């Protein structure tokens, strides 16, 4: 019988060995394939980096080098801001801005948080809006739009200037400092500034007689004239009520008479209150007429 085992010098067997066959099949398994081609290098990389970073001294040195590199890039002349230019600000604001922004020039533009700086500038009462940008050449340009005061508000805290939205602009010490602006008085007057402006515009015909507006109970306005005359305006529709009073004034010279209060709070029942002297006079006239009748 021929030996069953093939001789060593036999022709090369084209068949893969059992192990090679199994390995080939394993290699064709998708999960295993991804594991070897992605997982293994990834793991080796992570492991190597982890090992290298596990030494604290090396870690610190790396951090230091990184910080130095960041610093170096920040200090490059391309990123330097050397000065500041303010546009559209009045003298006091311009003087206050460096203190508000608190930047020591030269600074790196990467370190400047323009959004935060803008918020800080806009926190100033007198500034309505601000635009910041870094101009080529390393100049920080601050464009400021200021609020325009339209009213003087006498509140418990003192005298303030208000803009057309009711926002405080600045405080003043003396009413005479801004005698050109109308006066409003009372708590909560700053929250009703648009209405006040409308009323003041409507009250134009009163001219010099107008003393100011008083906010009553934080809900409605009183128009105060000289000679202690008052026009009590309703909560809603105040300008229209005022127009009616002014119409009476122009036709009947209402306010020129001896009247203390014109009460327009109730739309359908305007009321007049006479001054004490006028009331006494009226009483006297009535008495006289009664006596005349009885005669």
């Amino acid at each position: 019988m021929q030996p069953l085992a093939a001789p060593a010098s036999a022709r090369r067997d084209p068949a893969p060995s059992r192990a090679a066959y199994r390995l080939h099949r394993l290699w064709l398994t998708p999960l295993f394939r991804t594991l070897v081609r992605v997982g293994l290098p990834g793991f080796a990389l992570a492991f190597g980096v982890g090992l290298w970073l596990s030494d604290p001294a090396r870690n610190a040195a790396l951090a230091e080098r990184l910080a130095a590199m960041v610093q170096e890039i920040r200090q490059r002349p391309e990123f330097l801001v050397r000065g500041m230019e303010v546009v559209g600000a009045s003298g006091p604001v311009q003087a206050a801005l460096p203190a508000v922004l608190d930047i020591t020039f030269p600074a790196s533009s990467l370190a400047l948080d323009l959004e935060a700086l803008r918020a800080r500038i806009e926190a100033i009462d007198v500034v309505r809006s601000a635009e910041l940008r870094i101009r080529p050449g390393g100049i920080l340009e601050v464009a400021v739009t200021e609020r325009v005061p339209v009213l003087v508000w006498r509140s418990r805290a003192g005298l303030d200037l208000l803009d057309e939205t009711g926002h405080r602009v600045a405080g003043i010490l003396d009413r005479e400092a801004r005698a050109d602006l109308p006066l409003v008085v009372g708590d909560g007057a700053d929250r009703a500034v648009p209405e006040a402006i409308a009323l003041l515009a409507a009250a134009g015909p009163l001219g010099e007689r107008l003393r100011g507006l008083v906010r009553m109970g934080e809900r409605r306005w009183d128009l105060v004239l000289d000679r202690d005359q008052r026009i009590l305006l309703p909560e809603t529709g105040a300008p229209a009520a005022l127009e009616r009073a002014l119409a009476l004034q122009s036709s009947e010279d209402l306010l020129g008479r001896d009247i203390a209060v014109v009460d327009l709070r109730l739309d359908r029942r305007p009321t007049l209150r006479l001054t004490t002297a006028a009331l006494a006079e009226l009483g006297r006239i009535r008495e006289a007429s009664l006596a005349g009748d009885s005669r």
Partner: protein
Amino acid sequence: MTDLYQSQRMMRKMRRVAIERGLVAVLDVGTSKIACLILRFDGPEGFREADGVGPMAGQSRFRVIGAATTRSRGVRFGEIHAMQETERAIRTAVQAAQNMARVRVDHVIACFGGAEPRSYGIAGEIEIADSVVSEQDVARVLSASDMPDLGQGREVLHAQPVNFALDHRTGLSDPRGQIGHRLACDMHLVSVEAAAIQNLLYCIQRCDLELAGLASSAYVSGLASLVEDEQELGAACIDLGGGATGISVFLKKHMIYADSVRLGGEHVSADVAKGLHVPAATAERIKTVFGGLIATGMDDREMIDLGGDSGDWEKDRRRVSRTELIGIMRPRVEEILEDVRARLDAADFASLPSQSIVLTGGASQMPGLDGLAARILGSQVRLGRPLRVQGLPQAVTGPGFASAVGLCLFAAHPQDEWWDFEVPAERYPARSLRRAVRWFRDNW
């Protein structure tokens, strides 16, 4: 019997799993070559009806993504003869196909040519309980078929119901839902040597693969090379393989007979080697290049150098004429065809409505075979090539790959077999009841 039923059901389940996963390999274990194709199943239909392709009997569902062939070793007469060698050859083919497909396959459907298939026609008949035929009734009539004595060490490879009859009507292909009283069924059963199946199973398991189906190569090459009307009207497919020649007869799209002749192309090569005193490899080459079956006057003048490296000048310079070569090959081919004729006669092939014969398989490429076969088998002979399936490389479209291609069709669209129907429900309770009664009688 139930053991076989269970194992076949298991294979069917395996096949379903493989198709769900979308990958299955088919393996044709032949005497001269082992072919492995890897199929990918891409969902229900790759083509729309508007493309003009149509469902194509389920073929458009799959695509061949890997194909490999290797010289077979350790297989004789279509049966595994040396396990280690065959295992290695299977491994080579599977690895090469996997390499081409770049995927790993776990399920394989295999076919083999030999193992002495024997074909039986069996019949069963039952009374139907409620006049409508249900799936249960089909299972019952299949189980009621009288099982022939297969003999020692034989297993059922195919058991296909080919015909149903309901009362006086016959020729039904699917009786389910119809109304009648008596349901009868004809079943075609193919049995093979159990040892051949065992050996193949062992080789496939050694390659870390799961067997998802088994088929006779005569049957699957018939599936691949017979066209539809031939299958319908009756035709025989002769698969001239290397070591065995498979015969399958089809009628009404069912295989009704299968057999195999243990002779094939390798015997022709062996005759050439013996007759011309040349090594087997040279004989194979001479047969393939110069071979023929019908000699003409021209062939006397065509001289063939036999070559050789014996060192003897006289021997190495021998020349033979092509006529001599034909003279050696022809008697053997005639013998094969006579044998086939005898088998077909035994199967009463002559009584079929149409008697067309299709020759396929690697050995059918011999020039002049159709003329010779027409003289022996009858006039309606043609040479068949397997159907073309998607993605099949050009190199494996030849007639030698008919069974591999047929196996693809078998994998995609298997015919219902006996084990595709559930076991009739009443069989189990009856038996367990009987067992319980016996237990009572024995113990009380």
